[in-house]
C-alpha cells in the first residue's frame, strides 16, 4: 500500500523530472504551489456549498438546489457572478490601501498551507520554527483587515475593522498559549516533528494523539474556541454583525475583491483546521493500527473534513456573543485556562520522573485531569456568575 500512500509524492517527482535539469528546483516549487492552490481552491468551492446545504438542514430548509444536480454547481455560479460584477471603489476611499487589502489578506494565508504536513512526506516546507511562523503569518492578516476598514472611509468599516482587530489580538493569545503544551511535549516547533511525536499506540490500539490526554483535550477545546474567533466565524462573527455594522470592514467591497475576502476567510478556516489536526489530532496518522493500510493523506483529509464540519455545525447552532462577553471569555477564561493547562502538561511530562505511583498512566491521568477540572469549573463561574442560577424569562405582557 506504500505506493498509494506516496502517490502524490512520486507522481510529483516524475512530473518534475520531465523538466530540464536546470529548471527542476523552480519546477518543483511551482508544482507544489499549483497543487496547494488547486486543492485548497477546490476545498473552498466545496465547503461553500456544503456549508450552505448544511445550514439549510439545520434550519429545516433545503439550501441551494437549482444549479446542477442537488445544487452542486452553485459555487461555480457564485464565482461567475462575483467575477462579472462591477468593482466599485468609493470615491473618498484610499485607493492604494483599498486595492491592496484583499491581496495582503489572502497571501499570508496561502503561505501557511506550505507548512502543513498533508500526509507522510507531504509537507512543502519543514521549517524549524513552523508553528511560530504560522502565527506570524496569521497576525499579518490583522494589518490587512485594518487596511480594508480604514481605507474604505466608512464608519461601519472602521468600526468593524476595529472590532475584528481587537478580537484577533485578544484571541491570538489563547490560541498561541493553547498550542504551547503540544510544543513543550514534542520538544519542537516543527509541524512535521509534532506529527512524528504523536506516532505509535498505547496498549496496542489507543493512538498517542495529543487530544487523548487531559491537557491535550483541554488544549484542543481552547484551540478550537480561539480558532473560531480568530477566523471571525460564528458565534464570534461580531465584526460582520450585519444587524449592527452592515458587513463590517467588507461593507465597501464588491466583485472580485469581495470574493477575495471571502476566500481569505475560508482559507483561514482551513489553515487553523489543518493546524488543529496536526497539533492535536495526530496529523496524518491512522486512528487504529489495523487501519494503517489507508493512505496518510486520506486520514488527514478525513480529520480535516470532520473539523470543518464541526465549524459548520457550530455556526448553525450557537448564537452570536456580545462584545463584552467575547473579551471576557478571552481574558478571563481562555487565557488563565491555557496557562493552567501548560502547568498540567508540564506535570504530565515530568511526573514519570518522580517515581512511585506517578509512573502509572492512570495516576497521571487523574492528577492532570483534577488539575484542569477544578479551574474549569471555577473560571467558568467567574465568567458567568449567574450560571446555575434559576433562569428568568421576561415575557411580553
Amino acid at each position, binding site marked *: 500500500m506504500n505506493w498509494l500512500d506516496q502517490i502524490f509524492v512520486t507522481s510529483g517527482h516524475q512530473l518534475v523530472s520531465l523538466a530540464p535539469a536546470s529548471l527542476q528546483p523552480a519546477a518543483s516549487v511551482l508544482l507544489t504551489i499549483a497543487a496547494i492552490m488547486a486543492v485548497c481552491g477546490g476545498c473552498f468551492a466545496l465547503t461553500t456549498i456544503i456549508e450552505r446545504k448544511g445550514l439549510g438542514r439545520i434550519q429545516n430548509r433545503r439550501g441551494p438546489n437549482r444549479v446542477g444536480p442537488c445544487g452542486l454547481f452553485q459555487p461555480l455560479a457564485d464565482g461567475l457572478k462575483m467575477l462579472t460584477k462591477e468593482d466599485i471603489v468609493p470615491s473618498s476611499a484610499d485607493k492604494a490601501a483599498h486595492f491592496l487589502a484583499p491581496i495582503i489578506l489572502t497571501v499570508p494565508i496561502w503561505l501557511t498551507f506550505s507548512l502543513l504536513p498533508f500526509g507522510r512526506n507531504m509537507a512543502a516546507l519543514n521549517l524549524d520554527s513552523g508553528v511560530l511562523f504560522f502565527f506570524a503569518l496569521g497576525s499579518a492578516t490583522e494589518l490587512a483587515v485594518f487596511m480594508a476598514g*480604514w481605507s474604505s472611509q466608512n464608519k461601519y468599516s472602521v468600526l468593524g475593522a476595529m472590532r475584528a482587530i481587537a478580537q484577533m489580538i485578544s484571541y491570538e493569545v489563547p490560541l498561541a498559549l493553547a498550542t504551547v503544551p503540544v510544543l513543550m511535549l514534542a520538544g519542537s516547533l516543527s509541524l512535521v516533528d509534532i506529527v512524528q511525536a504523536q506516532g505509535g499506540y498505547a496498549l496496542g490500539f489507543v493512538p498517542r494523539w495529543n487530544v487523548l490526554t487531559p491537557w491535550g483535550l483541554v488544549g484542543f477545546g481552547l484551540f478550537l474556541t480561539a480558532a473560531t474567533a480568530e477566523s471571525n466565524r460564528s458565534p464570534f462573527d461580531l465584526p460582520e454583525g450585519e444587524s449592527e455594522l452592515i458587513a463590517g470592514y467588507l461593507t465597501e467591497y464588491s466583485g472580485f475583491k469581495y470574493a477575495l475576502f471571502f476566500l481569505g476567510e475560508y482559507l483561514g478556516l482551513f489553515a487553523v483546521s489543518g493546524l488543529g489536526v496536526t497539533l492535536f489530532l495526530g496529523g496524518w496518522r491512522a486512528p487504529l493500527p489495523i487501519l494503517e493500510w489507508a493512505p496518510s493523506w486520506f486520514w488527514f483529509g478525513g480529520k480535516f473534513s470532520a473539523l470543518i464540519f464541526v465549524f459548520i455545525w457550530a455556526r448553525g447552532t450557537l448564537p452570536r456573543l456580545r462584545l463584552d462577553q467575547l473579551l471576557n471569555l478571552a481574558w478571563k477564561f481562555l487565557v488563565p485556562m491555557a496557562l493552567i493547562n501548560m502547568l498540567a502538561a508540564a506535570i504530565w511530562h515530568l511526573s514519570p520522573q518522580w517515581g512511585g505511583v506517578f509512573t502509572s498512566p492512570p495516576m497521571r491521568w487523574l492528577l492532570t485531569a483534577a488539575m484542569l477540572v477544578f479551574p474549569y469549573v471555577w473560571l467558568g463561574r467567574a465568567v458567568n456568575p449567574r450560571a446555575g442560577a434559576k433562569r428568568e424569562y421576561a415575557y411580553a405582557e
Partner: protein
Amino acid sequence: MPNNIPFYLAAAVTLGGAIAAMSLRNLVHCALCAAGAFAGLGAIYLQLGAEFVAAAQVLVYVGAIAMLIVFAILLTRGGKVKLTARQTAPNRFVGFLIVLLVCASLAGSILRSPSLQARTLALPEVTAPAQRIGENLMTAYVLPLETVGLLLTAAMLGAVVLAIREEPEARLRSEPTAQRRQALEEANIS
C-alpha cells in the same frame, strides 16, 4: 549573482518600505510601509538562517508594533491629512546634512573595514534551531529572560496607566446603573 536575487528583493522591500515610511505624508500610509519594511527584514533574517528570529520579527513588528502604531495614529487623529501643514522639523537642511553625514560615515567605515574585506568566502551553513534557542534561554540567558519578562509586565502596566482615560465622573456614572440594576431586580421579583 543570480542566487542572491531573493536577498536583493528583500533588501529592496525593506529599504523601499523604510524610505516610504519616513517620507509619505499620510501617517497611516507611513505605518503600513513601515510594516512592509519590517516584513522585508524578516525575509532577510530567513535567508540568513535565523528562522526563529524571522518569525518573531514578523509576529512582534508586523503583528503587534505596527498595529499599535496604527491605533496610536487613529487615537491622535493623525489619519486626517492636512496637506497644508508643514511635515518636517525646523532647520530641515541642517538636519538633512547631518543625516547624510551619518550615512556616509557608516558606509565608509563598513567599506574600509579590513576584517570585513577579508571574508570574501560564501556564508557558512549554520542555522539557529529553535530547540537550541530554547535551551539557551532556560540556561545561560535565564536571568535576562526573567528580567525581560519583568520589563514587559512593567511596560504593560505603565502603558495602561499612561494611556488610561482619567474619568473623575466615573463613580457618578456607575451609580445610576446600580440603581437601574436594583430597579430591574425589583421588577423581576414582582
